[in-house]
């Protein structure tokens, strides 16, 4: 069995499983945020009317909650949702609630690894499509809707069809100034935005061995944009060290068997990658930066679970150091812990000296919620994950997806720019 099959077999109490088997898997961790939490409450209300008991959760210690989409509260409705979420966690005894304005908080997928909320081998479900991110730690990490999350909260398990696995063998270390974001855009451009549909996308090879855990998180994060059920990397010493550095030492590493089977194997020469962007209006509409259209950008946005981890900020700082931005530029570190490190290591000074607005952790404009949404006809280069029509604001705005380095270089020139042309 491969890693996903082994995790699902263990979680469903079976000696083995194979693709297309339907299993009810026990869940190890479940996450909600300020959109899915109130959504789940709505489901609870419906269940109550049907006479189904919703007065206690199966295990509140396995549940954790983030505030990220509309925080700091964008308006009255968002503020009410935060109150609802706070009452929810209080009433149901959920202690792991990361509240803005009270120390560590941030984007749920970023907290999943910054706070070591999820362990290798876990079945981890979250009320958000980018839950896939945390597969980089070797967990089966899957995004679900409100009804399914409500089901998990009350029952502790949920059905899955065991997915086929597509294995992506990445050969060689990424060149300087080329990032995991470039690589995943390349992959999505090749296989299309339903190229991984219903499947696991597993990454391995020397390109992964050489890659930091944060870069692997970027790869797994955007498997969602290829339609995948989940993304995963087999945990190695880097993952063990990463988790240890966050204080987590009590976990069981699960790896695939030597004779693990994959539905398909893809090979990518990661050592030959170039900076890549996705043009409007789909993450699979990619081209190399050297062939990017010559558009006048209005804005550069460095944020989100995809593109505002510490490593992403560090990469942007390399480009912005000693330079000035020519267009509106926002940088929103994805969690307070990252914000703090950026302060301690001088990144914030580099950003502010360059003229950037540095904002608080939030999903913000990535999902068109608030804090920098786009007006009609505005064109943005962004380190986020999707660029469907209206994703970041007006339906007639345009978003180009890129790595943090490309977004930073483009902020300096006002055009889509290869960072290697500046450095």
């Amino acid at each position, binding site marked *: 069995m491969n890693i996903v099959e082994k995790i699902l077999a263990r979680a469903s109490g079976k000696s083995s499983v194979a693709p297309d088997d339907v299993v009810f898997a026990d869940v190890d961790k479940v996450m909600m945020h300020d959109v899915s939490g109130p959504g789940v409450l709505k489901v609870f209300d419906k269940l109550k009317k049907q006479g189904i008991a919703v007065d206690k959760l199966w295990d509140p210690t396995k549940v954790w909650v983030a505030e990220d989409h509309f925080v700091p509260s964008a308006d009255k409705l968002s503020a009410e949702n935060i109150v609802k979420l706070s009452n929810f966690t209080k009433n149901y005894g959920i202690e792991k609630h990361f509240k803005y304005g009270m120390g560590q908080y941030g984007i749920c997928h970023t907290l999943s690894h910054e706070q070591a909320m999820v362990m290798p081998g876990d079945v981890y479900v979250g009320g958000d*499509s980018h839950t896939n991110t945390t597969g980089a730690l070797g967990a089966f990490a899957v995004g679900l*809707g409100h009804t399914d999350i409500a089901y998990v909260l009350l029952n502790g398990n949920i059905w899955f069809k065991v997915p086929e696995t597509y294995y992506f063998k990445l050969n060689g270390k990424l060149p300087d100034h080329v990032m995991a974001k470039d690589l995943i855009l390349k992959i999505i451009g090749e296989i299309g935005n339903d190229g991984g549909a219903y499947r696991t996308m597993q990454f391995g090879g020397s390109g992964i061995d050489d890659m930091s855990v944060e870069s692997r998180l970027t790869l797994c994060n955007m498997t969602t944009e290829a339609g995948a059920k989940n993304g995963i990397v087999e945990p190695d010493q880097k993952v063990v060290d990463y988790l240890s550095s966050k204080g987590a030492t009590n976990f069981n590493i699960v790896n695939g068997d030597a004779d693990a089977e994959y539905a398909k194997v893809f090979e990518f020469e990661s050592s030959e990658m170039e900076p890549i962007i996705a043009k409007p209006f789909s993450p699979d509409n990619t081209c190399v930066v050297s062939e990017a259209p010559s558009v006048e950008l209005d804005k550069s946005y460095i944020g989100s679970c995809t593109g505002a981890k510490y490593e992403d900020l560090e990469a942007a700082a390399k480009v912005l150091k000693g330079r000035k931005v020519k267009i509106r530029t926002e940088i929103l570190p994805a969690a307070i812990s990252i914000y703090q490190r950026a302060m301690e290591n001088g990144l914030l000074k580099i950003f502010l000296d360059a003229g950037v607005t540095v904002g608080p952790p939030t999903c913000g404009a990535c*999902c068109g919620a608030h804090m920098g949404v786009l007006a009609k006809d505005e064109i943005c280069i962004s380190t986020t994950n999707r660029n469907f029509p209206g994703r970041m604001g007006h339906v007639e705005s345009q978003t180009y997806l890129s790595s943090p380095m490309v977004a930073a270089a483009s902020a300096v020139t006002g055009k889509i720019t290869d960072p290697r042309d500046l450095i």
Partner: protein
Amino acid sequence: MKGNVVKYARDNIDTDVIIPGQYLKVHDYAELATHAMEGLDPDFHSKIKEGDFILSGKNFGCGSSREHAPIALSHSGVKAILALSFARIFYRNSVDGAFLLPIEIDQDAYDGISEGDEINIDISTNEIKNLTKNQTYKMKPFSEIIGKIIAAGGLFKYKPDQD
């Protein structure tokens, strides 16, 4: 199940156009319905009537896990989506929450059915009859688990132990 078809002859209708991100903070189902398909078709509500169907191409509902998407469509009156394929979370949300039926169709049905056609969907025979054009198409049968959840009326009414 009989109704008329509103056709969007394109692939990849994503959750950002089905219900734009700014409305994720809204949890009132009736209000969500008023914004359904706002990112794609401002005339959606003048076209759709209670019991109607949407017909579209590949990868319908791709993008976010927002359950707001099937909720907004279902509370606008949409009873089923017929598409060449679906994105997984949208599909799952539609079935587990019992909001609407996601029906996978083949190219013949996609090409044969036009905007405004009246069709009858029979999930017991996996047949779609086009009453306007007097044609019949096959739909892809639901997988066993999906069929059982639909028959039960959603995930919470499905009892896996009684299988």
